[in-house]
């Protein structure tokens, strides 16, 4: 009757890696653009994102619900209670944290690089790739933070995803629903898997990141 832990775990991985990936890419693009802007504007944007980090995921879930439910503005898309709805919501969950963990580094490095570039005569079009290369450890950890935030959040997955068995049930919703019916043992297993997975993925990506930098 209860869905296998294996398929819940895979679904969880798929949904949160997709969400954190999109969030990460948009955060990188945003950072590249914003680090060119003047400092005041960039700080204002950063301030907004810093504030957004603290929004409860339940609130984001409710907003996504109000957007996607049949009477809502995007109700005609009929994507409420699908994995896509969770991915969209989790992008909003992961984006602020990805942005705030990487932007300061972009800003300060671009400052020092400006002089370097002028003195060494590096073409302007290469500065972005130098930035990305220099910041790769930061990027790795910011990707990981956003991934952990996405895979560990419950509000969006429960409200916009519904926790439908065999369809939108992810680790966190399974933990919530199973513990709400008193099945604590199963919920504990899922919790352990969640912790184990985030740790393994973190280590794996850290190693890859370091290898690339020092190679």
């Amino acid at each position, binding site marked *: *009757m209860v869905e296998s832990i294996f398929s819940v775990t895979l679904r969880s*991985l*798929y949904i949160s*890696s997709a969400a954190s990936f999109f969030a990460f890419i948009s955060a990188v693009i945003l950072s590249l653009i914003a680090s060119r802007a003047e400092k005041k504007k960039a700080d204002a944007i950063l301030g907004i994102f810093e504030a957004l980090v603290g929004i409860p995921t339940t609130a984001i879930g409710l907003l996504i619900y109000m957007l996607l439910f*049949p009477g809502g503005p995007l109700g005609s898309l009929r994507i409420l209670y699908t994995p896509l709805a969770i991915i969209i919501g989790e992008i909003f969950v992961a984006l602020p944290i990805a942005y705030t963990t990487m932007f300061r580094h972009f800003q300060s490095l671009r400052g020092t690089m400006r002089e370097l570039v002028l003195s060494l005569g590096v073409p302007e079009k290469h500065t972005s790739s130098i930035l990305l290369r220099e910041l*790769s450890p930061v990027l790795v950890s910011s990707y990981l933070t956003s991934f952990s935030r996405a895979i560990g959040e419950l509000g969006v997955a429960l409200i916009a995803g519904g*926790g439908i068995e065999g369809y939108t049930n992810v680790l966190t919703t399974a933990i919530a629903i199973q513990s709400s019916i*008193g099945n604590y043992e199963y919920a504990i297993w899922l919790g352990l898997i969640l912790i184990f997975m985030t740790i393994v993925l973190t280590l794996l*990506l850290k190693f890859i990141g370091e290898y*690339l930098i020092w190679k």
Partner: protein
Amino acid sequence: MFNIINKTAIFIISLLVIAVAVGSLGYYIWKENQSSSMPAKNVIIVSTTTSLYQIGVLDDLFNSFNNLTNMNISFNVLAKGSGEALRLLADGSACIGFVHAPSLELQYMNQGKIERLAIFGYNEFILVGPKSDPANVSQAPNVIEAFKRIYEAGERGDAKFVSRADLSGTNVRELQIWNLTKLNPDGKSWYLKSGQGMSQTLLMADNLNAYTLTDIGTYLKLAGQNKFNNLVILKKDPLYLINVYSMYLSKSSNCDNPNTWYIAYKFKDFLMDQGQQILETKYKGLVDPAKGSESMLQQAWETLASLG
């Protein structure tokens, strides 16, 4: 310079590869699940109270329905409290609902947002509490008197009461009974609001030596798994504690299509015919079939709905 760009590229690509590899594996499994169990056309979203989900009766009914009619419909179940389940129905986020909160049901029906298809089953709420029974509710003549005794014992500091405080069917009934006692426990230090599902609330009551009101199905299910240390049934009251389960159809435009209506009515017919037998043979005591007590249940429903 090229070297640097290469490394950047490798880094980005490796991130991409990981994301895509993990993602596609998950996607593959998900897709497979989807194609085997969900032909796109016949998906119907069902909201239900957690008690029915936990007892496992809905899964059983859906499976027999599919077997019997060869329709292969996938019922996507959202397990929520009755308050939320009804809200989802009113929004059209779910099209069929199974709930047990007559006064809320009446509100939504009066607003023209939902339509009742059937009262299909019932069981009872029970007052549970610690074996020692500090408020002596087991000797109370009825549940209203029992609640009064809990209030007095609570004021003396001898008893606690855990409320779900989530507008679920059980919570609504509890509030109705407090209303009948003319006492207001809200804000008292012995009146704890869990805000959680029935099972968690029961386990909380067990750990805190507190009283709580529960549907009998959830209690028996957990008691059968030996989850309780000292939580026992203290008071039953068929007059005030009957628990009526009804099936609803959303009248939202989202559900207003022949396919959904066909499935809903077809399921209702099944539920009131073969479904009643399934309840009778497999779930007696957890959810009793409505068959044979229709008028009694209708009357009980109306009384409860009017209690507000």
